[in-house]
């Protein structure tokens, strides 16, 4: 958690936590494993009343945030959701909300934003392509200009909540460069296939585009000019993902710390064993470092820091490795109980692992840092 929250933000955090603890404790998340979408739309609407999808949207379209710095409010929700491994397309929908807010025409904003804010419209971002491609340079889905618009051809996967949303923001390649389209999920020529997923309630699908026609009015931003927009969306996605991951660790660290005091071995609490104490010291450090990194990224993205991408990749690679490390250590401290299905720990590890590898693996982001700091230019 950010050590520098305002009083309003603190209050919002507490309200959000209470809402989630009451509405969707982890037992309910387990039950939702059998729900095809992994979440319930009515419940989602109630969450939206608390502002889950309004933070990045301007007031004239029904949005609004606490301090005028919506992302810094939104990461509070993401972190609390991580603490209870809550389902729901928080990241996916908000990235689309941001993209429409920042780059949409007035018509696009009017059409989409109120519904997103109320929770009636769900949206997701179709960025990834098979083989772990997420980096803008590697995308191949093709948008060919045709009469009155474009024709999309290719496959996007994994796409979060594909099959359970209403609007899909598709990042495609035209001959002029990257271009983004807002495509309704029932567009002709689109086939959505559910994929298997590690997380019990976060669903992914594969979307195949067989010459899907999209009108010119569906272009978000400018044709061929979407590179910066995609970058910005990635930054926001990573900021939210980091906050959620930090939340998962925060909860499990608490639980495990308590366990260390309660559980006795050879007449002594586990917390008295120096080998475990020292590992806990490292875990504490990594968790603080993760939080520091996640907070710094949220601020940098909120403030359009020119190094925001570099910071996002730095945090993404560090937190990706260290969050799961801490969780695995927590499993180990629990012994056999930690690897049972009935105990909740693996659910947290599933979420954190999913976050680790979506929107780029730690290795991917380390490579990206090398690019961003200019290793290429002078070396070739």
């Amino acid at each position, binding site marked *: 958690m950010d050590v520098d929250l305002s009083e309003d933000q603190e209050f919002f955090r507490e309200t959000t936590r209470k809402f989630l603890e009451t509405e969707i404790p982890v037992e309910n998340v387990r039950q939702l494993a059998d729900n095809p979408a992994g979440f319930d739309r009515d419940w989602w609407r109630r969450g939206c009343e608390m502002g889950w999808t309004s933070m990045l949207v301007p007031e004239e379209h029904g949005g609004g945030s606490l301090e005028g710095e919506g992302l810094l409010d939104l990461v509070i929700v993401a972190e609390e959701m991580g603490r209870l491994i809550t389902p729901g397309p928080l990241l996916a929908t908000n990235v689309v909300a941001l993209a429409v807010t920042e780059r949409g025409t007035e018509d696009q904003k009017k059409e989409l934003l109120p519904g997103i804010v109320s929770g009636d419209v769900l949206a997701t971002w179709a960025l990834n392509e098979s083989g772990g491609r997420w980096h803008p340079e590697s995308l191949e889905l093709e948008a060919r200009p045709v009469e009155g618009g474009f024709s999309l051809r290719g496959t996007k996967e994994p796409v979060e909540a594909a099959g359970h949303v209403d609007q899909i923001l598709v990042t495609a390649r035209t001959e002029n460069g990257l271009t983004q389209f807002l495509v309704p999920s029932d567009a002709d020529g689109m086939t959505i296939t559910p994929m298997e997923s590690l997380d019990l309630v976060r669903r992914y699908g594969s979307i195949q585009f067989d010459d899907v026609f999209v009108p010119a009015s569906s272009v978000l931003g400018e044709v061929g000019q979407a590179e910066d927009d995609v970058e910005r969306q990635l930054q926001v996605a990573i900021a939210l993902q980091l906050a959620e991951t930090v939340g998962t660790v925060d909860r499990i660290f608490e639980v495990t710390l308590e366990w260390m005091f309660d559980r006795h071995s050879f007449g002594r609490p586990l917390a008295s064993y120096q080998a475990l104490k020292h590992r806990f010291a490292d875990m504490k450090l990594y968790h603080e470092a993760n939080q520091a990194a996640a907070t710094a990224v949220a601020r940098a993205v909120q403030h359009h820091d020119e190094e925001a991408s570099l910071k996002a990749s730095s945090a993404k690679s560090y937190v990706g490795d260290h969050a799961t490390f801490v969780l695995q250590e927590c499993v180990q401290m629990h012994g056999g109980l930690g690897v049972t299905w009935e105990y909740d720990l693996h659910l947290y590890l599933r979420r954190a692992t999913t976050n680790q*590898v979506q929107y780029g693996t730690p290795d991917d982001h380390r490579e990206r840092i090398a690019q961003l700091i200019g290793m290429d230019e002078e070396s070739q």
Partner: protein
Amino acid sequence: MTESNQSMETPEEFQLRARAWLADNMPRRPEGQGHLRNFDRCRELQKLLHEGGFAGVCFPAEYGGLGLTLEHQQALDEETMSYDMPLALNIPTFGIIGATLVEFGTHEQKQRYLPPMIRGEEIWVQFLSEPSSGSDLASLTMRATRDGDSFLLNGSKIWSSGAQSADYGICVARSNWDVPKHDGITVFIVKIKQPGIVVEEIVDTFGGTEFCQEFFDDVRISMDDVVGEVDAGWTVVRGLLAHERNSMGNASPLTSGLELAPTDHVVSDIVDIARTTGMASDPKTRQLVGENYALRFVQSETTNRISSGMARGQFPPTAGALLRLMGARAAVRRSDVALAIAGSGAAAWHEGDPAGNAGSRFVGRQAAEIGGGTTEMQRNIISERMLQMPRELAADRGIPFNEVRHNAATTQKSKK
């Protein structure tokens, strides 16, 4: 196990005879099969071996074994590597419980229990861990109450591997609460399928059910089924744990066939993921593949070194802890490597994609560091017993068990 004598078949002769017999009678090991957990199949395979005269090589002849030497067993092992062997019976049935009965059982117990074990008719399980005692095994609270000429057992056991398929169990219980923890323990032989014992499967994070929890309610045990002395069962447990370490390190002489551990498939698995994710020419991926291969090689050579050193007395029996630690750490690293190569595919995949299980392997990876004694316990054994470093303070040493501090109520988890 027995002295070699002049009339005994040499290991070489034995090996040649085994080679011929195996070729004619045993099925081949299925491709890529690491660890066979199908107990019915194992019963059949063991029966086959017994009929062919190749079961229980190092078990005493008077209790249904062949009474041959370790060299005979090793000769047989060389031949059986490519055959489908009843590996699931090695641990705990032969390597741990068979060895313990040989060491501590009465003549009558050996007569009764070893022959059907060797024939593959009776499978065993260990009832050691309890919900509230993890690494500190001796803090167990399964209650053994003397009732005339027998004992009544009450309590719960957990992490018993394969209990749902087993016929008999070795159960460790507390028969005296007024003495320090090690001094009031008794070991029992328990028939599993009887009223009063409920076996429940535990679902692990992979969705598997290797382990069980059992609930004992007034289970009556005859005095004939006490192993070792009443209240002095800790001696038996220590022996049993030594056999366990040996077995986990592939160093037990009593087993039927060798585990292919670390198995070849741990290399091909990783290569498969790399290929299907299109990463086979990615330099970092290739280094991970190389690392994984190297790890398998080193693990296997370390097993050779320690096992053969133990056999010659160059390493103490506790050196098995090194192998457990190596195996656990290697398994963990392997799951990290698989995840790194699988990338996004570990979180979302199409059915059948080999990257798909990298995520759940990673999520469940600590099982390797927990099952069979945590790596923390192995590190204690290595530092304290092999390197002779001072032992950790046991706050319960010398204190009557009923006066020792136990877990806080919140962690007294039990299923019922």
